[in-house]
C-alpha cells in the first residue's frame, strides 16, 4: 500500500512538472572503467528516460564486470547546470544487481569431486553518485564524461561437498561490498 502511494505521489510530481515544462525522451549509453581494490574492469550502461528542463529521470541497465558479472537495473536521476558549452551535472542512481552466474560448480580437477562446492548468488543492491561534464557535439547529441563513487554488493552462499559433524552440509555465506571509482564516457540525447 505504501509503495503504491509512493508511486502515485512520484507520478503526480512528474506530471505536475511536465505540465509546466516540456518533456523530452532522453537516452544515454556509456562505457567505462570500474577501478577498485579488487580489480579494474569494464562497465557498460544504457539509460532511457525523460528530460524535463534540467532534470533527467531514467531507468538504466547494463553490464557490471566487477567482482562478478552482473546486470544492474536502476533508477537514475540527473541534474544539469552550467554553461551550454560544457555543462555540468550531478547524478545518482540506485537499484538491484542481478548476478549472471548461479549454482556454479568449482572443481580443482574433473575427477576430484570431493572439493566441489555449489554456489548460490543473490540479487543485491547497487548504486552510484557522481559528477559529470556534458559537451554538445550536435544539436541533440552530447558527449558525457563522468566520475562517480560506485557501490555494489555481492552475496553468495557456498555449500561444501561434505557434511559437518551434525550431518548437515557445510555452508559459508560471503558478503562483498565493492566501493569503486567509476569513470565513464558516453553519448546522450
Amino acid at each position, binding site marked *: 500500500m505504501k509503495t503504491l502511494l509512493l508511486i502515485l505521489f512520484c507520478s503526480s510530481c512528474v506530471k505536475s512538472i511536465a505540465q509546466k515544462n516540456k518533456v523530452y525522451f532522453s537516452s544515454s549509453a556509456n562505457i567505462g572503467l570500474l577501478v577498485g581494490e579488487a580489480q579494474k574492469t569494464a562497465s557498460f550502461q544504457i539509460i532511457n528516460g525523460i528530460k524535463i528542463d534540467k532534470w533527467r529521470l531514467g531507468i538504466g541497465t547494463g553490464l557490471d564486470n566487477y*567482482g562478478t558479472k552482473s546486470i544492474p537495473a536502476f533508477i537514475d536521476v540527473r541534474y544539469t547546470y552550467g554553461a551550454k558549452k560544457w555543462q555540468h551535472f550531478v547524478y545518482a542512481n540506485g537499484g538491484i544487481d542481478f548476478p549472471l552466474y548461479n549454482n556454479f560448480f568449482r572443481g580443482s580437477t574433473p575427477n*576430484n569431486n570431493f572439493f566441489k*562446492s555449489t554456489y548460490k548468488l543473490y540479487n543485491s543492491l547497487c548504486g552510484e553518485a557522481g559528477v559529470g561534464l556534458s559537451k554538445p557535439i550536435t544539436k541533440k547529441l552530447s558527449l558525457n564524461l563522468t*566520475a562517480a563513487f560506485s557501490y555494489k554488493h555481492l552475496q553468495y552462499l557456498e555449500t561444501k561437498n561434505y*557434511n559437518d559433524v551434525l550431518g548437515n552440509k557445510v555452508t559459508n*555465506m560471503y558478503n562483498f561490498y565493492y566501493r569503486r571509482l567509476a569513470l565513464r564516457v558516453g553519448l546522450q540525447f
Partner: protein
Amino acid sequence: MLHQHLTKKLLLVAMIATVVSGCFKDTGTKTYKLYTPVYQTTQAVRAAIKNDAPQPISSVGKMVLYGNFIFLNELNKGIHIIDNTNPASPVNKAFIKIPGNENLAIKDNMLFADCFTDLFAIDITNANNIVLKNAVENLFPERRFINGYQMDVNTVITDWIVRDTVVNITIEEGQGIWTKNGSYLTSGPWAWQFASVASSLKSTTGVNGSTSKYAIVNDYLYALSSNKINTVTIAQLDNPKLVNSTVNNGTIETIFPFKDKLFIGAQAGMFIYSITNPASPVDVGKFTHARVCDPVIADESIAYVTLHSSQDRCVGFTNQLDVVDITNVNKPTLIKTYALTRPYGLSKDGNLLFICDGNAGLKVFDATTATNIILKQSFPSQETYDVIAYNGIAYVTAKDGLYQYNYKNANNVQLISKIGIVK
C-alpha cells in the same frame, strides 16, 4: 580564460578525488558455523549407557534386525530400538545414547556398538535395564580425530555447540573476484562421513545390511577400520577381545559374511577373505574396479557389487551393478554389468535382488539368471541407503526415514510402513 577555467575544474576534481579516494575500499565478510565440542569423560559416557525414552529419529544410519526389533543407528548419537512386532505399525520404543556411534552388531542379546574409538559390549537381555558390560578400547584409533579436534584417551565428544561466526575478509588485488574457477574461499570445518553389524543365518544373531562395517560369524566379530579388518573374539560375549588386525590398503568400507568367506567392499574393488581360520582372515581373491564405493553381497557362486560415484568420498562417474562369478574365489570374473542411477546398499532373498538406487529409490530385480537380471518393480523415494531383505520384508533406510516392504508375493511388492524422520 577557458583554459584556466578548465584547469581549475580539473584541479578541483583531482582534489576531490584525492579526498574521497579513501572511500574506495572493498570489504567482505564470511559467515560460517563454528563448532565447539562438548567433552565428557569416557567414564561418564559409559555410566550413562542405558535405554532412554524414545526419541524422534532425525537421521537414519545403519540398521540391524534382531528378533521382532529393529536397531537403527542415528549417526554419532546412538541407537533407536523399534518394536517391529507388527511391521505395518512399527513403534519407536527406546533410545540408547552412544556418542560417536556409527556401527552395530548383535549376538545372543549382546549389542556391540562403537563409541568413537572404542567397541562397547552392551547386554540388552533385560529391555528395561541394559548394561554396558565391557569395552575394547582404541579399536578404531582413526576416530580419535574429528572435525580438527583430537580427543584425549579419557574423553569423548558428546555434543557440539554450533554458533554462527562472522569474520572480516581483507580484499587485495585479485581477491574477492568471482571467476569460472571459483571465488574467494577459505576452508571450513569438515568431517568425514562414516556410514552396522551383519550375520545372516543364526536366529540369535542380528541381521545387518550390506553397508555394514561389522560382521559376526560364530564367535567372532569382524570390524572394519579404514584399512584393517579387526578380528574380535566374542566367545565370551561380555568380554570381547581383539585377537588380530589384518591390514588392507584398499580403503575398505563394507563387509558381508557368507559361510567361510568375508566379502569386503573397498574403493579399489571387492576383496575376498577366507575365515577357515576365523581368528586370522586370509586374502584369497579380489575383483578390482574403478575407484568408487561398492557394497557387496554374495551367495554360493555369485557376488553382486554395486558401484556408485557421488560428490562426497566416492568420486568418479561409475554407477552400476557388477555381477561377478566367484565359483573360483581366487579368480573372480565379471559376468555382466548393469547401469544404474546411483546404487548403494543391496540385499538378496532367493531370486529377488533388492537394490537401493540413490534418488531412484528401491528397485526390485529378478536375478534368476545372472546374465539377464530384470527390473520388476521400483519405488521412487528420497535417497535410499541400504536394504535388508529378510523373511518376506524388505527394510530400507533412506534419507527421509525407514521403509518396510512386503515381498511375500514376489510379483507384487508393497509398501507396508514408514517411519519418517523428524527434523
